[in-house]
């Protein structure tokens, strides 16, 4: 990896996580940090199991191993957090 890419990865950006209730939570992370860290911190803060949350970017789920750089997320970009859904009747 070139030096330039490294510096770009180190630069922190703010990501907004918006949930169904309309509430937004801000995370300041490096572009090279795995999203797993955001997901875990978010779940912990909300007091829910991470496995009951679904994080989406433009309607598709985000893989925990991906980084903002891989997802082409920029500063102030928003991702959605949805609660598990279930149904039977």
């Amino acid at each position, binding site marked *: 990896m070139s030096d330039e890419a490294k510096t770009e990865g180190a630069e922190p950006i703010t990501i907004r996580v918006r949930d*169904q*209730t*309309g*509430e937004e939570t801000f995370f300041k992370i490096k572009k090279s940090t795995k999203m797993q860290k955001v997901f875990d911190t978010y779940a912990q803060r909300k007091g829910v199991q991470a*496995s009951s949350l*679904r994080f*989406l970017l*433009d*309607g*598709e*789920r*985000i*893989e925990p191993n*991906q980084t903002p750089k891989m997802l082409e997320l920029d500063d102030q970009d928003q991702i*959605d957090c*949805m*609660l*598990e*859904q*279930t*149904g*039977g*009747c």
Partner: protein
Amino acid sequence: MRNEVEDYLRGEPGASVSIRHLVDALSQSNRIKNAYAKQKESLFGPISRRLKHLMAIARGQNNPALEARYQITTVLRLISRRPSATAKLVNSWDDLKKELSLDMDFAEPSEEVSSQFAALRVTPKFELVQLTSPPPPISPADKKLMGVAQSVAPKKIEYEELGEKGPWAEHLEQKQAERAVEKAEEDARYDELEQQLEEKQKEEEAKKLASSLLRDYTNEEEDMIQSATCGPGWEQEVLQSEGPDTVLRGSMRTLRPGQWLNDEIIHFFLVMLAKRDEELCLADPDRKRSHFFKSFFITKLRNEGHTDPNKDGAYEYRNVKRWSKKVPGKDIFNLDKIIFPINQGRMHWVCAVAFMQEKRIQFYDSMGSSGKEYLDDLFQYIKDEHQDKKKAPLPDEDQWELVTCTSDTPQQGNGFDCGVFTCMFADFLSKNCPLLFSQKHVDQCRKRVALSILLGKAIL
């Protein structure tokens, strides 16, 4: 319709085409196809189809332009089946209208046409044809029927010379009238038989397709399903993944009989259907891709669960504006179908499908609710998406049809199987297969979903 006919006639050198040609050409126009699609949708007989049509009018969902087309197409079909009529040449809209006016009433027939045809209806046809123009070529079948008329033909001269009706003319008239009745009866029988045959064939094909979708499973497959859904293991263990989508063991367990399905199962199954759809499109270049949104699409579109009570359930396009980026071709208007799984009130699964080429959005609920609010919002989404991405209002907006849950939609017989029904609606519809399954197939369907997920592809 008139314009289409005239355009077609202008495009023809010699400007004279047979009705058969015209019917063929018009059937290929998309708008007529819609009318056909509506007819084909029903596997019932012509009477109940007509009733259905009338009911649609009564419900106020009717669109006069489509209705006119529907009527004309029906009449064209009838005429095209009648061997005596298909060879007739027409070279203008009025000509065609003349032909049609024997079978249907136009809203505003021109005086000229109606007076001519009032005359035609009371006067036996043979007088016009046989006395003024050379007889048309006679087919063997016609010859047999016209045996009597042929044999008395010479006498006709006498009748003309005398200027009054002789006994032969009366005889001829009588025979012709008898023949007309016979022919009409024969035509009706023929139409009926053909229709029955057509329906039977369609039914058989559909059954074949449905049974291929609901096959039995091998012992190995049964074991695989059993161990994944009922076997021991950690809840959070990832059993299957495809790109960013995963299925945990805990979700897989919701496929056990009697359990409510969660979103992970439904979405992963739809990812498998999308994969199958992609393969089918590769094999058939004429097939357009379909897209399967996640149920969160509707949740976001309608702001469901918002803490502000004014916003909760309120449509907001902005929330899903970017979602079509992940659609094949990034253009929802070039898709065949869009499947929307919907989670209702965190307790019920239903499905809506936008048939983009047929301009129809239909709602499928195994509990039979109408789904009107979802249809309205989805239609608004399509309009907003067109405005946003194509920078123009949706064309032919009045041709779109919103179909609430129909009475023949398969229904669940309990309080836990709706997720399975939703998966099957998506499965069958994306393969263009009629919804020939019911509550008794549900265990097999649960296994179908489980196996498709475990194999990483929708089983065929």
